[in-house]
């Protein structure tokens, strides 16, 4: 070991730690600057609206995913839960939009209870418990909808996805409120502290008398409910319930947003603001590639590269 390596190591650790904490914000800023300079018609209110609206569903699902990952779990069922919620909307819209939305969210909560029970009480690995719902859930959604895309015409319901409140899209407001709530839950509540403790060290949490099982089941319920909300919003924005397509590969996008946002897959830490920016970053990457006429295939490969880089950076930190 030369002296140079000895002095360089702490620097590298610092850089890595900094990247882990602020990398996602830096990436968003860099990408914004790039677009302002190189992309035509990027700097317009209409474009910013579009970007935010499109990022909203991923952001909402990712918030729930962040809580689940905080407990060292994973929720692969989110896309299928979105599909179940979407399939239920046309069935109950006759009784009013509010009823339909409540039914959809209840379905999400039930799905979450189901996964949560398997994980918390039967001790089944999260990846498998939620895999079963990922496989079966979409089938269930298709069975409910008889495999069909159904147009939704209720104006009040459509307001959710397309309307404005004080000039801000309703979807963005919903996502923003949920993000603030998630932040408060993680930072200010006993539940939030328990969650992080359970993810950090399950055995120690059990010994310390924390309500481990209740915490575990709760995060899956929250994730299910948020996925259902995202399904409702996606249906409203599309103006149609499409259970075969809504939320497809959403689990990947959500996990990516969470990981890119600095929440380690090993649990014990939740970064809500990072998750929001993670969702924004994924949206910006996609928009940038599309606006520069790069095809879908490239977008997927770039997304893959981002995941690997983000996890690589996170790894250096968590291994210390």
């Amino acid at each position, binding site marked *: 070991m030369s002296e140079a390596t000895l002095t360089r190591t702490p620097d590298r650790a610092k850089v890595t730690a900094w990247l882990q904490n602020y990398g996602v914000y830096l990436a968003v800023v860099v990408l914004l600057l790039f677009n302002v300079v190189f992309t035509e018609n990027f700097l317009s209110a209409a474009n910013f609206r579009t970007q935010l609206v499109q990022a909203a569903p991923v952001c909402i699902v990712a918030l729930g995913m962040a809580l689940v990952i905080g407990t060292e779990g994973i929720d692969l069922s989110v896309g299928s839960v979105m599909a179940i919620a979407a399939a239920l909307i046309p069935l109950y819209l006759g009784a009013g939009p509010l009823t339909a939305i409540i039914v959809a969210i209840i379905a999400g909560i039930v799905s979450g209870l189901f996964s949560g029970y398997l994980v918390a009480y039967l001790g089944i690995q999260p990846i498998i418990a939620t895999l079963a719902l990922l496989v*079966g859930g979409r*089938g269930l959604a298709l069975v409910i909808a008889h495999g069909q895309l159904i147009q939704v015409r209720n104006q009040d319901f459509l307001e959710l996805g397309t309307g404005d409140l004080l000039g801000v899209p309703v979807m963005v407001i919903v996502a923003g409120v949920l993000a603030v709530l998630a932040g408060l839950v993680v930072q200010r509540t006993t539940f939030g502290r328990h969650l992080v403790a359970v993810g950090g060290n399950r055995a120690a949490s059990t010994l310390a008398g924390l309500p481990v099982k209740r915490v575990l089941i709760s995060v899956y319920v929250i994730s299910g409910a948020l996925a259902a909300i995202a399904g409702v919003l996606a249906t409203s924005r599309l103006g149609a319930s499409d259970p075969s397509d809504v939320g497809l590969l959403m689990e990947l996008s959500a996990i990516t947003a969470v990981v890119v946002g600095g929440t380690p*897959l090993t649990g014990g830490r939740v970064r809500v603001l990072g998750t929001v920016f993670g969702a924004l970053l994924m949206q910006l990457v996609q928009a940038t590639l599309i606006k520069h006429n790069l095809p879908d295939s*490239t977008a997927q490969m770039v997304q893959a590269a981002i995941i690997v880089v983000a996890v690589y950076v996170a*790894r250096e930190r968590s291994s210390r």
Partner: protein
Amino acid sequence: MTATQTQARNAAFAGVLQRQGAAVVLVLGVAAAWFAFPHFGTADNLRSLVLQGSFLAVIALGMTFVIISGGIDLSVGSNYALGGVLAAYGAQYGLVVAILLPLAVCSLIGLINGLLIARTGMAPFIVTLASLLFARGLLLALTSEGATTYKVDPGSAFLWLGQGTIFGVGVPVYITLILFALGGLLLRRTRFGQSVFAIGGAEQSALLMGLPVARTKISLYTLSGALAGFAGVLTAAYLQSGVTVIGVGTELDAISVVVIGGTLLTGGAGTIIGTLVGVLLRTLIQNVINQIGTLDSNYQTVVSGAFLLVVVVIQRLLARSRTR
């Protein structure tokens, strides 16, 4: 004395159920289907059943190795589709290219998975998730965003691999059986196989014992990539073209059949035969749902999901009762 004997017998019974549960269910299921559906027992139906299962079986073979080592490979579905398209594309340059091109590319993707997992310590789940996206992207790029389908010339010798028959049974079935026999030998009779079990059981101990942990992991993911690509080759030969839309969700099918076959997701334990049983069970369920005919085909995925769950819950409960 008698109480402990009964206890011991119960424990042994639970152990058998845990290991052979899927086989028991398979036998019962086949028997029930045989009686319930007149068409089920026909030679035609049984032949198509094993042929349909063979493609998934090849993918699941690689997955079994990976899962026994305590890892997971989510990229197999994309690799499978990519392998099929490359095979169909390569078929115009002859049989050898049609086989070697997809094998080379898919092994390379597996190799990269293995290198990232073994050398940087990143979670297999996330690395292979990234390569799922990457391989799918590569596939789309090769087929101009999925618009191009590569058709195999009807006279090509390559098609025999998928459509040929020996004694009336499809060639892919024989290939699958040979691969499983080789896989079984590799897992049970070689140092490599021992290392796979050791790594899955306790990686730290494996390292301390001086086993080549990194090298074994890299080989495993390469093998899984190659097998998924080869399943794509067989499928392309069977379908006579490279189909871009196949393989979505196949990683989940593969994981399901491996788990149903009794391989523990926590690593360290599992069998090749179990995976074969798992594949047959899954194919049986699909077949039965098709036989019912009036049933919405969407129930197929519901049943698959429910079935996976039931098996995992039973495994879990039995494991618990045994440790008590």
